[in-house]
């Protein structure tokens, strides 16, 4: 079966961006690959609706699939992940410190609420405007701005201080 050239062009042009966005949303390469594949499949199935603006369409699909995945996971686990946070005062200039700092930022990103993580990824990784982010997430521009503000505040807290003990009395 022949593939439309414009769809093929879109796949080649956008797959890496979608994969990387998916990775930042899920924190997991395997999940990101699954998200990418399902997203592209859906775009293919709905090409008629997507072909005028396939990029934003695919981003919206990716976000929705990511939310579905998070919902499925939350049904099975009540999770209270508490990652490590670094000490900015310890920063040194060698490469391993940069990598360690990056690891701390990514760990902090993973602790954000899903909506907050989405807006940070879309705005600062995918470089979408507030309006484009609102369209991709199905919210208003005001909501995007408030999510962004809260996300930055939360990130600042996570990166400034070590986390409180991630322990809770066992409910067994």
């Amino acid at each position: 079966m022949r593939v439309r050239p414009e769809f093929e062009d879109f796949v080649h042009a956008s797959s890496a961006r979608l994969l990387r966005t998916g990775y930042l949303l899920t924190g997991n390469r395997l999940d990101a690959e699954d998200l990418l594949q399902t997203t592209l499949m859906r775009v293919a199935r709905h090409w008629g609706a997507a072909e005028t603006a396939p990029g934003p369409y695919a981003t919206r699909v990716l976000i929705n699939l990511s939310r579905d995945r998070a919902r499925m996971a939350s049904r099975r686990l009540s999770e209270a992940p508490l990652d490590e946070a670094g000490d900015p005062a310890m920063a040194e200039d060698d490469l391993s410190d940069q990598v360690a700092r990056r690891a701390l930022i990514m760990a902090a990103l993973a602790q954000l609420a899903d909506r907050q993580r989405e807006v940070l990824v879309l705005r600062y990784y995918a470089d979408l405007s507030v309006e484009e982010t609102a369209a991709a997430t199905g919210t208003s521009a005001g909501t995007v701005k408030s999510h962004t503000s809260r996300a930055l505040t939360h990130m600042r807290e996570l990166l400034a201080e070590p986390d409180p003990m991630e322990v809770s009395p066992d409910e067994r």
Partner: protein
Amino acid sequence: MSDEVLIEEIRTAMRAEVDALEVPSAVVTRVLAAPPRSRLTLGWLMPALAVGVAAIVAVLAVTSLGHQRAVPHGAFSRIPVAARGLASQLGVLRRAQTQADVLPRWAVRETESLSQGGRVIGRLSRLVGAVHLGRYGRARVYLVVHTAQPTPLHPNHPEPPFLNPRLGDQATIAYVGPFREEAAINGPTVAAGGELLAATGHGLTAGPRQFNDLWGAVTSIVPDGVVRVKWVFDDVGAKPRHLTVWPSVRDNIALGRVPPRSQVYMSRAVWFGANGREIASFATPGRAAQARRLRRAVAASAKEPIASALVRHFALLRGSPTNDASGLSPAQVASLIEPNPLGLNIDQEQYVVYSPAPAKLFVIPGAQGVALSYLSPMVGQAAGATSDALGGSMFVVGPRISGHRMVIGLAPDGNRTVRVRLPGGHDRLVPVVDNVYAASVPIAARWMFLKNAAGRTVRLSLR
């Protein structure tokens, strides 16, 4: 930090994190096999169904194949054959090594010395995160792979339950820093779901500042497919309780926290895959009871007096203790004081870094004897009566390595050096520091000379 600076840092981190991600060609191929369409018609129904079924089959295949799908063709060619079994289960080993992943050379030495002959595969070390150590600052966490199977450091622990120990390689977590040339190395970590890495204080320290308790940081290695981990600990401290910890999981490392300096033992670990599916669970019943017994033994040990003769003839024992029981792993402490025929006082242990060799060890005095618990360059413990220590015969000889053996021992005050008679008949002087000496001597060296507590030179056989 201003918003702009924070945003730039987040942006840079996100880009650096994903820059190396490439789209698997199989995904593109599968997607392009699905023809796009303009609108839904009956003519499209069957192909659409076929695509849907293909997608479901693909996803199911992906799920069932697990990590095998993620192994890029060619990635294994860069991995030593002996390590491929391990690499097939730890995706972080299959990504390219960056400069930041390279374990510092001194940390390689520490890791190798603590793994008793295991050789570190330098190209397989990976920087996998950082842990915050309270006032000490931050330590980097590396995943390190050995070429040989290290001797288990905690022989009382059960067989590794999940990863196959016959892979020929073992992975270790190394914590580097925050002090220069200090690291904590955990023992064999193939028991990734078990308790080896679970409780604080189980790592072997290579530094004197109680760094090995890691300020409550707990790490464990998990294989591909594990996305969530649950740990349940029994706290046997002042307020006995259960603690549940959900560590973060990233780069095949689960990283969480328990209260610093707490006495916790893992009673259960559960691994979850995607969608909350339980992959495996590990229970270690009886560990809490064992821990309580050990706690009572430690409390009793702390009341033991130190033999006055030891204090009189060993300057090292006249100083304040340089560490406490957290410097040794619970298994090491248990083997020293359960039972405790020599009346060892674990609270009075002295940590010694013998720089000429180099060697690192604890000296544990007691009412009727003294013990050595040595960490580097070999790992083990030995104990003797007070008379042995006063007589100068308190020493251990390590296994034969490349025609040499390591000798570590205690020398009473008055010994600035210990003489080792070499095969050619001449003597080698080994310096004594803090009543401790350590040297690598030829296998053929038969005699060693030092002064006993009475000041008389004694000859000791090294065979």
